[in-house]
């Protein structure tokens, strides 16, 4: 029985539930190991007048103190734009900017040393808002535009026009395992670095870059992460590079583990956005034109902000065909920690913007927002090209809308919500059904490649290594299943190994939901090459063994259930491991390197035109909320999710991505709020004050399902990526809150819709609806 499609437990599940799974800080301390931390700026913007580490150096147990001057290589780095200084030189640009690296024998010595370091900073005017950055023209990268049709003309001829601004806050990743790395010095300046990173190759390259080493001197190893969500795509490089610096300079193993409060304060998160929109539509609710200007808060350095903006812009259409559209995107620079990748990568901000617009159109016209959505939904045969020119093929969106509305009993419940709100003096209900169409592939074409190493051992067991990193999403389990099926063996005989730059070089980040697509594709390629060679051997061997009955025919060789046979003589079976042995004796290679590059991608990174995505993952969700009119406290009564994720490689794992993504998105749009002091210091830097969803926040009724769709043959095993798209379905919760408020107010709402935000909107409600 093939393992693809089966609900196999996560390959680390047993280790997780018994506490045996190892993370970076679970590695035993090596003899002579140093603990590493750093002194970071408490000032958001300032000029460094002086740095005095003499008192710190005198503290017993302090082994080394380093500033930028001690870096053997380049201090300046960055994944897209090289604008970031690992260690501050003359200027600090955000709270959390590392200034002095501290290495010591104990945490206590680190604490004392940090207090003893004296950094004199002249404070400069900081920029903390998108408006202030716009005014100061302080940007990161270039503004970009997607343009289609005759926007100005469409507005002139419009029957209805709406305009407004929509804002959303940032979000902390709140991965449970904070940023962590251990660097072990090797011979001749070589380093082995265990890093909790989504991107071992980038960590490797940055370490080599800042230490002035050739890349081959640095090996980066990632067993697993205790969550990442984009937060360890670029920002895992800083701690790893700092630990590597200490290991190289002192010759001692060096460990750095951020505590939760530091991690939350000094690393960036999801980008806040502030978007201005104008939309033209008919009295029937057909959108004729939209002009959206996206402004994001990129923080102090570029990081991935320009790319995040690109995804926001390419998701501003979401599920809707808008014939005339102009979308601009500008990344504003501020004195916050650099914002970075976060599950959805700009997509959520783009999609929420258009979903808010649709709710606004429906309010203006007094219609059901779902009617507006379905009326504007991408067509199957026409009205099916995105504003950037990519056709929407295999379009299941109309079906998803219809089926999700049916399964969730949307129409009946919408009527019930209205009745409830007329009668209840204590509570308000709201309901909304929203969609997602999420483009799969890195927007940046060259990143869509992967390599894999497959080794078959003499007992028939198999090891697979790829550049994919495991952060809980189950990519390794899926890759193991794909390889098992390729070799016709049981998935339990295939081990997916620790990720290491020594085995897989120049890899892309585990990101963009596409790690299983890319690395799975590469692993299948490698396994297939091995199988091809084994097929030759099997054909010959089985023919010889048939004593003239069969001629050798590779086309007739079958690998299944751990056995190999010629389909013309299925009674005579070789065990897979017997064939392995035969191959070995015949000196046929049982190891292979596979490669995968996504086909069909074309993208003009300046004009913003082309086909940046291989396919789209789609879905719909209907959510209903209940709000206490007196306290603003909200809970989700029911959510129904229906997705198109192609053919699932592992239903249990995919389901977990859907429930997890949805709840994480709900957190972003409801209770997760980053609050800052006037100095720019984050106040909500621990779970006491930063409230991610709790188990009690899970919708009381939570239905998750997907449609059967085998048409996505462009991807491995006709599957679809599932990591990010469900997060955007949580927009249904936010729209349901907006819907509830619209019964008693103008319905205006920003994100996150905290209890406070809701109550203050209710306090300004229309007088006639006040009870």
């Amino acid at each position: 029985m093939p393992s693809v499609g089966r609900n196999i437990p996560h390959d680390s599940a047993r280790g997780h539930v018994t506490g045996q799974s190892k993370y970076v800080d679970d590695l035993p301390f090596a003899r002579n190991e140093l603990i590493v931390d750093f002194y970071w700026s408490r000032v958001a913007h300032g000029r460094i007048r002086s740095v005095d580490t003499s008192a710190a150096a005198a503290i017993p147990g302090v082994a080394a103190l380093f500033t930028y001057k001690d870096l053997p290589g380049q201090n300046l780095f960055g994944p897209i734009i090289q604008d970031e200084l690992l260690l501050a030189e003359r200027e600090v640009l955000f709270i959390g900017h590392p200034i002095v690296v501290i290495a010591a024998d104990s945490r206590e010595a680190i604490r004392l040393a940090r207090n003893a370091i004296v950094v004199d900073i002249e404070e400069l005017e900081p920029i903390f808002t998108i408006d202030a950055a716009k005014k100061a023209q302080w940007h990161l990268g270039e503004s970009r535009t997607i343009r289609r049709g005759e926007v100005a003309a469409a507005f002139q001829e419009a029957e209805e026009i709406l305009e407004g601004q929509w804002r959303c806050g940032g979000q902390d990743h709140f991965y449970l395992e904070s940023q962590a790395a251990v660097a072990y010095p090797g011979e001749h300046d070589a380093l082995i670095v265990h890093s909790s990173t989504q991107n071992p190759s980038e960590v490797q390259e940055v370490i080599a870059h800042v230490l002035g080493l050739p890349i081959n001197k640095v090996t980066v190893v990632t067993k697993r992460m205790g969550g990442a969500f984009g937060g360890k795509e670029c920002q895992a490089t800083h701690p790893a590079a700092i630990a590597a610096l200490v290991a190289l300079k002192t010759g001692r193993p060096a460990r750095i583990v951020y505590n939760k409060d530091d991690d939350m304060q000094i690393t960036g998160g999801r980008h806040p956005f502030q978007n201005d929109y104008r939309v033209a539509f008919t009295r029937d609710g057909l959108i004729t034109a939209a002009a959206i200007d996206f402004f994001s808060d990129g923080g102090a350095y570029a990081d991935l902000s320009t790319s995040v903006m690109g995804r926001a812009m390419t998701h501003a259409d979401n599920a809707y065909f808008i014939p005339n559209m102009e979308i601009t995107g500008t990344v504003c620079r501020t004195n916050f920690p650099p914002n970075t990748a976060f599950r959805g990568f700009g997509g959520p901000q783009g999609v929420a913007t258009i979903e808010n617009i649709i709710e606004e159109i429906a309010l203006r016209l007094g219609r059901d927002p779902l009617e507006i959505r379905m009326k504007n939904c991408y067509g199957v045969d026409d009205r099916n090209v995105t504003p950037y020119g990519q056709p929407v093929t295999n379009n299941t969106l109309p079906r998803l809308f219809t089926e999700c509305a049916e399964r969730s009993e949307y129409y009946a419940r919408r009527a019930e919500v209205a009745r409830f709100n007329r009668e209840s003096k204590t509570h308000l209900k709201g309901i909304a059904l929203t969609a997602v169409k999420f483009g799969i592939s890195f927007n940046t074409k060259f990143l869509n490649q992967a390599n894999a190493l497959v080794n078959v051992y003499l007992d028939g067991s198999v090891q697979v290594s790829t550049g994919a990193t495991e952060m809980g999403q189950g990519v390794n389990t899926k890759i193991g299943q794909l390889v098992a099926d390729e070799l016709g063996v049981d998935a339990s005989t295939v081990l997916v190994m620790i990720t290491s730059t020594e085995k897989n070089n120049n890899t892309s980040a585990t990101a963009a939901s596409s790690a299983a697509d890319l690395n799975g594709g590469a692993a299948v390629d490698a396994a297939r090459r091995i199988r091809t060679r084994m097929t030759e051997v099997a054909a010959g061997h089985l023919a010889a063994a048939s004593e003239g009955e069969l001629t050798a025919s590779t086309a007739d060789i079958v690998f299944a259930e751990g056995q190999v046979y010629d389909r013309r003589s299925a009674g005579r079976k070789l065990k897979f491991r017997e064939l392995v042995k035969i191959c070995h004796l015949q000196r046929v290679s049982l190891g292979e390197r596979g490669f995968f590059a996504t086909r069909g991608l074309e993208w003009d990174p300046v004009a913003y035109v082309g086909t940046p995505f291989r396919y789209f993952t789609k879905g719909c969700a209907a959510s209903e909320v209940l709000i206490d009119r007196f306290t603003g406290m909200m809970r989700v009564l029911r959510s129904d999710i229906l997705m198109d994720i192609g053919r699932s490689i592992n239903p249990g794992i995919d389901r977990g991505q859907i429930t997890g993504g949805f709840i994480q998105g709900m957190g972003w749009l409801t209770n997760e709020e980053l609050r800052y002091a006037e100095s720019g210091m984050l106040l909500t830097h621990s779970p006491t004050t930063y409230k991610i969803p709790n188990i009690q926040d899970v919708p009381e009724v939570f239905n998750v399902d997907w449609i059967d769709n085998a048409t996505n043959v462009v991807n491995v095993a006709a599957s679809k990526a599932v990591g990010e798209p469900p997060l955007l379905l949580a927009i249904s919760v936010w729209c349901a809150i907006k819907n509830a408020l619209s019964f008693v107010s103008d319905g205006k709402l920003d994100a996150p819709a905290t209890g406070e935000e809701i109550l203050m909107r209710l306090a300004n409600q229309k007088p006639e609806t006040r009870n």
Partner: protein
Amino acid sequence: MRNQALLFINGKEHRVAGAEAFDTLSNYLRYTLGQTGTKIVCEEGDCGACTVLVGRPDSSGKELTYRAVNSCIQIVGQLDGTSVVTVEGLAPPRELNAVQQAMVSCHGAQCGYCTPGFVVAMSALFETRDRLSEQEVRDGLTGNLCRCTGYEPIIKAALAVDGSRMMRARDLYPSAPMLETIGAHCRDSLTIEHGERTLSAPVTMEQAIGIRSERAPVIILQGGTDLGVQANKRGLRPPLLMSLNGIKGLDEVRIDAEMLSVGGTATLAALETAIRLHAGSVFSPAHGHLAELANILGIFGSPQIRNAGTLAGNIANGSPIADTLPFLFVMEARLELTGRSGTRVVPINAFYRGYKQLDLEPDEIITRILVPLPPSGSEETLGLYKVSRRKDLDISSFTAAIRLQTTARTITAASVALGGVGPVVLRMPSVEALLKGQTITQDLFERAGQLARREINPISDVRGSRDFRLQLAENIFRKFYYERLEPRREMREA
């Protein structure tokens, strides 16, 4: 006198003295013993990743009863006389208990970092039960945060567990031999010294008062749910700590027709349990009031916090957003304080003199909290409210208690206490005066809300703006009216 704390970890005896006794249990497990299954994330009891089981002798003294606590905010020394079970000890080597098995097959673990905490917390729930309802699962796992799964697979896993086939901590680690060792060792008081720090665990009240009188200030470390946080986050290292765990009988909770009486070391969980088990007329006002208190306790911190934290601790901490205080204020609770010169009783309404300023002498200990209950047949309505950013496992932005005594529809007495709107929990005499003698109408409570809003002067902080708090103070009277007093009952779906 002893200078070593005694505890069992996964059945193995450990004697801890000196610096290690002052280390957090989570650090001790991970970095001293190398048992890294227990994870440290927030270091403030707000995520549950470090959850372990702590077994203490039950009331019979013959069995250990295991409860989930956060090991990141417990120091090793305060666990003297307990049996600790970590994720590594839930099942024999290479085996899985029923919870672990269900978490594997239901995809309850993704990244795995929260998983040990969840597995331990879930196992704790099955120590005493065979099956859980979905609400019990949610309530029981409120203290654990997961960022990957969206919890749904974890709920499914818990619902799939058949506890009757479960290897339980109390079965895996027989109580009798451990209790024998504990009984022999912990008969005497404990004093652990390290550098300038001392941790004492007296076994009698006399000793406790003696310690608290002779060297001041001695900080009482009971649940440690706040001190542990202060230690981890602000580097607080009080030189003199005292645990009252060794004093027998101080944890008693008693409920009778007239009085709720809570001992100085009774945990919030014990209080919750006592209320649940209390048999009384469902229609009596006392029953209603206790049920109201149980609701508030149900959203106090998390099970792990309630298993460690005490009512006395919540009172002594003196926070203006302490969840139990509005209740105690409007119920005119009294505190029994025991010190060198004996015992005195102070009304809680006179106990706070300012922000964290208490009417408590350095030698005094809160030994009992007395809450008079309304006589049966009286006509009373009590509303307790907690508003926080997240309903569960959150610290209040605003709290309130409104208590009315009525005859027909006339208010004969009113008590109102608001928290989170000033440096201490505030009684609102002007609002009480406004309400007293009046007939219940919507307009009356509108005016009460507006008056309350004018009378307070809240600050803006990370838990809410001033305007938000003003609005809540106004609205809470409206809420009370519509949900508790309005003649034709509304649908109350929340």
